[in-house]
């Protein structure tokens, strides 16, 4: 929260409309999320000249109120209304919180021109029964009639609620830093507050050692004989506005300076501390009781302030109870230091102690302000706590004092932004930013102010500063001057799109599920020899394993749909999977159940193993793998043992297809999964092939075979026994039951023969055909049933 009254100490913004200013600031990059204003127009201090009972009510009064320019008749119901009282009057036209507009009205027949207000009605107090019972607010007798009561009460502040990007939250979360931001937007200058103080004759004698790499700056000053009391009103009001509770003048001053300069300070009770400070890394398991009375256990990543023996403060995070400033404190040691941002952030996170101070350390600090803050604290302690300040200070300073400098030309900035700013205008822009610079022959040498920790010495940074002040609204759209070409899908993206298109056209709908699954799911449908990655710190056990297969996820989608009464599910997903060696495999997974082609009044065409097999074959052929794949028996334990197969391409297993095991579901659900990476571009180009010119001859045959003989094997035998004239083999009947002996089946084949360069004669075909029959009969002890 930034208080505009407070910012007004450093930059003149009295002429600014607070809402317009907020818009300007937001446009320049710091998002003012809320403007909380206490100003209400139409309020005036009035004096009640007379009070009479309302003729038509037993609790209303008719008052005449002098508001300076005129006398108003107002009907008022408050019990404490009385003659001579100074009150807050909302005149006709005033808009009170809740968008409540004051209008001229008649209350039970009596004209009323305004409203006498309670503080809660103006939003300055909470709407409680207690506040309600107090009635209208009674101002002091010397309140000036006709003036603005909010100003008179000192409540006329406006607060900005900021949402600052991370890089600017070191300089925009304190009032002086924010004043600089307003200064560059309005092109005005900042005046820093007074750092002056008198010193007593005694010189500080103090032993300071820094024995860690994580404290780059440590300054200590000493003050004596402070008088602990309540803070002055303005400090209390400002701290409250910023969301901090006032405690006493000394504690409040340390907070006040932090909100001014962004530099957290720590005050030690000097008498409890002694004469020595050693800053070092904490020891393993070192303990300290912090201000809140809790014992904290530290490790070597934490930084501590010690008195040479024991910790007295967790650096940047919280002070120790043993050196706490209390009501009896007389002498104070003021610490103003810079600790390593990452270490402070980690310690605050680990101890769960995020405070205004630790947050600020965690964002980084500028040593210039560290020093100024120390002086400013002395100034305020002298003024508001009657402190006597010892001469001098002790400091350990490892900060880099080199200035951040940068050379560039106006055109460098123009090139980045795509705008045209002249050298002359560039000077104005840098002036406005309050960045010191020299310019020679169009080359600028700029010194980056230390308060702007976010700015590196590169021209893009300057372009950003110039750009945001110039206004991105003023950019003119252009397109990059680059050669014309059409982009492409690269690598696996291309194949993913191909497969996706095909599966969609085969009736499967694409789904997307989560990569992280629970261990139960991860155990299901295992068909490969893979170990899964298990997250060391998952958010929940439900999302703790990186899946190696998508089948379990698709089963969930099926369940989700089944629960919604959807019976027919044909879905697929293509996603990356990983094993515990981080080997990536992109998988194509499908799940099909219910009807494939739907017509209930005729007959649905239901999904079965052969439909899914057909989908896979179609996909493989589409990808160009004709005659290179086969299906062989497999043994995935979550699939039906007799209804599953491994998919083999060029002799390598690339996936699985089967029916989900009846132990897992009562429904007939078929799943498949394929390794997409195995389908990458190993195919040849399409070649035109002329079809046969000569008529074909078709021959049928049927065998009685042992039931367990696989028809696929018989087909292979037929192919081997034949010559080139055999063009196609079709299975047109598979039959078990009546007329076929037990444990036998009848299978009928239809063979198509075609001559390559002449019309085949029946005799020619019969030679081959008989050879095939003999081979099948011999190989499988088959009985020829028909031909």
């Amino acid at each position: 929260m930034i208080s505009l009254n407070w910012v007004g100490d450093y930059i003149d913004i009295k002429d600014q409309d607070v809402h317009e200013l907020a818009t300007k600031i937001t446009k320049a990059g710091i998002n003012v999320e809320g403007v909380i204003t206490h100003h209400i127009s139409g309020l005036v201090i009035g004096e009640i000249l007379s009070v009479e009972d309302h003729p038509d009510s037993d609790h209303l009064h008719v008052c005449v109120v002098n508001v300076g320019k005129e006398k108003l008749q107002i009907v008022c119901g408050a019990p404490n209304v009385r003659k001579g009282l100074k009150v807050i009057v909302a005149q006709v036209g005033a808009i009170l919180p809740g968008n409540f507009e004051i209008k001229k009205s008649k209350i039970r027949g009596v004209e009323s021109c305004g409203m006498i207000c309670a503080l809660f009605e103006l939003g300055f107090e909470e709407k409680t029964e207690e506040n309600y019972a107090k009635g209208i607010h009674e101002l002091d007798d010397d309140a000036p009639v006709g003036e603005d009561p909010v100003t008179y009460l000192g409540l006329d502040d406006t607060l900005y609620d900021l949402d600052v990007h991370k890089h600017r939250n070191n300089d925009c979360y304190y009032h002086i830093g924010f004043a600089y931001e307003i200064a560059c937007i309005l092109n005005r200058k900042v005046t820093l507050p007074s750092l002056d103080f008198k010193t007593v004759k005694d010189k500080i004698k103090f032993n300071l050692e820094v024995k860690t790499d994580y404290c780059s700056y440590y300054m200590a000053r000493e003050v004596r004989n402070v008088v602990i009391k309540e803070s002055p009103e303005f400090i209390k009001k400002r701290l409250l506005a910023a969301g901090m509770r006032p405690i006493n003048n000394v504690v409040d001053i340390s907070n006040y300076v932090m909100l001014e300069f962004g530099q957290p300070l720590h005050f030690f009770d000097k008498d409890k501390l002694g004469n020595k400070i050693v800053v070092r890394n904490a020891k393993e398991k070192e303990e300290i009781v912090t201000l809140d009375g809790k014992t904290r256990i530290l490790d070597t990543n934490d930084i501590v302030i010690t008195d040479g023996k024991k910790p007295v403060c967790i650096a940047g995070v919280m002070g120790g109870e043993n050196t706490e400033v209390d009501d009896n404190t007389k002498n104070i040691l003021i610490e103003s230091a810079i600790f390593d941002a990452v270490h402070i952030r980690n310690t605050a996170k680990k101890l769960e102690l995020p405070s205004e101070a630790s947050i600020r350390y965690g964002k980084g600090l500028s040593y210039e302000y560290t020093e100024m803050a120390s002086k400013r604290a002395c100034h305020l302690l002298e003024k508001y706590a009657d402190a006597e300040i010892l001469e001098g200070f002790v400091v350990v300073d490892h900060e880099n004092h080199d200035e951040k400098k940068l050379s560039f030309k106006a055109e460098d900035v123009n090139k980045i932004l795509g705008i045209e700013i002249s050298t002359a205008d560039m000077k104005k822009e840098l002036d406005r930013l309050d960045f010191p610079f020299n310019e020679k022959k169009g080359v600028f040498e700029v010194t980056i102010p230390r308060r702007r920790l976010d700015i590196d010495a590169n021209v893009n940074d300057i372009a950003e500063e110039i750009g945001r002040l110039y206004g991105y609204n003023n950019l003119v759209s252009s397109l990059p001057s680059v050669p014309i070409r059409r982009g492409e899908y690269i690598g696996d993206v291309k194949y993913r799109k191909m497969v996706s298109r095909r599966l969609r056209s085969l009736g499967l709908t694409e789904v997307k599920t989560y990569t992280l699954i629970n261990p139960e799911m991860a155990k299901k449908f295992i068909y490969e020899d893979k170990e899964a990655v298990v997250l060391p710190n998952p958010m929940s056990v439900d999302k703790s394993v990186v899946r190696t297969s998508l089948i379990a996820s698709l089963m969930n989608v099926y369940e989700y749909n089944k629960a919604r009464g959807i019976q027919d599910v044909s879905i697929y997903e293509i996603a990356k999977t990983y094993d515990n060696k981080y080997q990536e495999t992109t998988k194509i997974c499908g799940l099909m159940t219910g009807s494939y082609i739907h017509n209930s009044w005729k007959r649905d065409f239901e999904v079965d193993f052969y439909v899914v097999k057909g989908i896979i074959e179609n996909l493989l052929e589409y990808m160009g793998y004709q005659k290179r794949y086969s299906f062989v028996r497999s043994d995935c334990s979550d699939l039906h043992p007799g209804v599953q197969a491994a998919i083999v391409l060029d002799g390598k297993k690339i996936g699985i297809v089967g029916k989900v095991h009846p132990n897992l579901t009562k429904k007939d659900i078929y799943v498949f999964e394929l390794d997409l990476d195995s389908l990458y571009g190993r195919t040849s180009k399409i070649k035109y092939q002329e079809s046969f010119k000569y008529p074909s001859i078709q021959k049928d045959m049927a065998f009685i075979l042992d039931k367990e003989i696989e028809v696929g094997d018989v087909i292979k035998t037929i192919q081997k026994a034949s010559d080139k004239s055999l063009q196609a083999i079709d299975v047109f009947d598979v039959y078990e039951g009546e007329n076929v002996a037990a444990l036998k089946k009848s299978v009928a084949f239809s063979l198509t023969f075609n001559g390559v360069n002449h019309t085949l004669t029946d005799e020619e075909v019969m030679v081959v055909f008989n050879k095939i029959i003999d081979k099948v009969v011999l190989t499988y002890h088959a009985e020829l049933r028909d031909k």
Partner: protein
Amino acid sequence: MENKRVNEVKEMLQKDLVETDDLKVLDDLRVKYLGKKGLITELNSEIKNVPNEEKKEFGMLVNELRNTFNEYFDKTKEIIDTKILNERLEKEAIDISLPATKIELGAPNILEKVIEEVEEVFMSMGYDVVDGPEIEEDKYNFEMLNIPKGHPARDAQDTFYIEGDEILLRSQTSPVQVRTMLKGEGKIPIRMICPGKTYRRDDDDASHSHQFMQIEGLLVDKDISLSDLKGTMDVLFKRLFGKDVETRFRPSYYQFTEPSVEVDITCVNCHGKGCPVCKHTGWVTVVGAGVVHPNVLRMSGYDPDVWSGFAFGFGAERLAMMKYDINDIRTFYNADLRETCIFDREDEE
């Protein structure tokens, strides 16, 4: 004698050739006259027995009879065929109002549909579509994007680490940009987008998801400016949401771009008039973008004195939610097939 026979047959014909719609009657007639022992056939075979001088006349008479019959036969046959066909067609008529057989094609996932639209816009402007690993090294996900270890920018992307602080589930798709630049070895211009899954430690609710689809893009070439980014964003959003959609830039901050901007577009819900969706501003923020930070270019082997570029990123979910008025991000990951099947169609421009 023979002519008499001809006249008898002729008379018979005249009596027999009546209209009929009975195929059997017609066929019987054919047998009677033109069958093997048919009357006309018999007369025909008599020709050879007729004296030569009468042969011609007799032949003509017989022929006449044959023609008469054939004419009758063809005409009647056609009538009967038509009748039979009509009967059949009538019988075959179906109730066309019965429900159709559903031949259903699959629908794309809604996010993929939106992503493909974005891909199409960028591919038409010469951007390749590239993908990369989802299990990433810290180096590519953070360090080479100007986010060193300990940097506060990492806090905002609360990351799923897998192995120490080196291996993680990518929290953004930017590592694909880094990998693409490294492949370019500082020599070739780059135009690419990389839509893909990303992961952050967010609790899933209507507007948060621990897994989401990011679409990031990168252009590295010579003399590329922030204005070029503005023009590119204009093209994208006009194509996605219509010609009247405007874009505006607001200053922002990202580690890997400098200057950085947030891109707002005209609120699609109210066309910029102001509504609860845009918090009555008329604008919604959709993209984070900026000029590629010189450190990022340098780390990936591109000399920032020679090369420049812009990068941008946005969430596919947010885009899809805006485009299709969806208000729960989980919709994309819990596919209710009744909801998704309507996305299997071309969308109106």
